[in-house]
């Protein structure tokens, strides 16, 4: 504790903290990374501090996200209110807070949920098959033939004439004897029809019918875009990520969905092209394959903190 008052220790911590904040920004250049390596090598105390910083990050990475977030991000009564009003009043706060909608409560209350990297399938009461991709939360109300996609991605195959309606925040889709894939991101949602035809009712705008091979993306601002995709291309339901000439940045953003922890890459790598079919259950292997086929190198600071840099930049 007393070392924290030592001005030299404070200065070192400040320097290391600035490095960490730069790395997390995802904007560190290859040059920055070289400078960091030089800083670490310059003094054993630097390296020692850096190791501690890594340990610190790992402590946060190894706790389950939803539980840790709910516990550590609980509302904090001020010291003053605890002393003045006492504990009985102060401790009531979290209960009330849990009723609020703005925090990811809906996610951990969800009926079905998958963790990062997990995929699972369930058979619903009417015989329909629901598949959940990585980091997905779904509420199921089969008595009302209704599902709610809270976050993540699902595939739904409805076998009966009775349609199932799926609410995805930006609208809802009614699926009769058809098969769809539905993906909900922070500010957009994508509906792809794998079989048959469905009816989409956006929260803003007119209802429309989608058919086999159609892909509709809706955005939070009310806009949307219609396209086509190839329903025969293998995808996450087959446990693979299949791409053809895709920019590396876009590819890695996809891989990151399946991988706990931080995955970053030097900005210069963004537009390298990737082609291939990759197994989603081993993202470490995907990164190895990239390193083998592209001029990139994987720097793993820990299992949860991986950076891709250009090969010639690697130390």
């Amino acid at each position: 504790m007393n070392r924290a008052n030592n001005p030299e220790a404070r200065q070192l911590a400040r320097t290391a903290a600035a490095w960490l904040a730069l790395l997390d920004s995802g904007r560190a250049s290859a040059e920055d990374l070289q400078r960091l390596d030089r800083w670490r090598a310059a003094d054993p105390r630097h390296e020692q501090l850096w190791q501690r910083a890594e340990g610190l990050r790992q402590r946060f990475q190894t706790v389950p996200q939803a539980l840790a977030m709910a516990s550590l991000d609980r509302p904090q009564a001020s010291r003053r209110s605890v002393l003045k009003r006492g504990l009985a009043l102060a401790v009531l706060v979290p209960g009330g807070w849990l009723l609020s909608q703005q925090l990811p409560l809906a996610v951990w209350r969800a009926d079905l949920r998958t963790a990062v990297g997990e995929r699972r399938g369930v058979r619903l009461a009417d015989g329909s098959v629901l598949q959940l991709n990585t980091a997905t939360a779904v509420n199921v109300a089969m008595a009302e033939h209704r599902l709610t996609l809270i976050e993540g991605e699902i595939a739904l195959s409805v076998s009966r004439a009775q349609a199932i309606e799926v609410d995805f925040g930006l609208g809802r889709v009614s699926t009769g004897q058809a098969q769809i894939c539905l993906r909900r991101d922070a500010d957009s949602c994508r509906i792809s029809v794998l079989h048959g035809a469905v009816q989409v009712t956006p929260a803003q705008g007119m209802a429309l019918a989608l058919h086999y091979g159609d892909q509709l993306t809706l955005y939070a601002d009310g806009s949307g875009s219609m396209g086509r995709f190839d329903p025969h291309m293998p995808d996450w339901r087959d446990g693979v990520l299949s791409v053809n000439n895709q920019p590396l940045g876009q590819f890695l953003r996809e891989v990151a969905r399946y991988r706990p922890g931080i995955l970053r890459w030097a900005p210069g790598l963004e537009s390298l092209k990737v082609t291939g079919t990759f197994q989603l259950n081993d993202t470490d292997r995907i990164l190895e394959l990239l390193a083998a086929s592209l001029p990139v190198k994987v720097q793993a600071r820990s299992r949860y903190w991986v950076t891709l840099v250009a090969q010639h930049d690697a130390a």
Partner: protein
Amino acid sequence: MSEAVALTEQTLHGLYRDHRNWLESWLHRRLGNRWDAADLSQDTFLRVLASPQVLEELREPRAYLLTVGKRLLVNFYKRRSLEHAYLEALASLPEALAPSAEQRWLLLETLQALDELLDGLAPQVRRAFLWSQLEGLGYAQIAGRLQVSERTVKRYMAQAYEHCLLAEL
């Protein structure tokens, strides 16, 4: 040396005799129950015992006891509120995803350690840091949620890292 210790024990004894009831009832009013109040008052005296050099200079025993007692009360509250939030979150997890009974307690201990590590950070800074570390949010997303610039988020992150690194020294 032994003389100083004897003096300390004697002083502590007097302190305990003269002020324990008073401290316990002060804590009782804030905690709402006698058992926790008794525990915390006991802890307060133990803390005071652990720092004898201060005791020797004690001019205002009640003010001093209250300073220590308040600190313990605030820590007690933090642990309680963390436990409370944690248990509620556990209760709302689907059973299949809930950790085993043994894991629950290990996890609570880990979370308490992290909570202490973050203690003292400004609420916005703490939040930005948690979003980054636990949810893996980028600075742009954090900036959007907090309604601040990305530059500010980066500054928050640096502050939080510095705080945690120093707390671990």
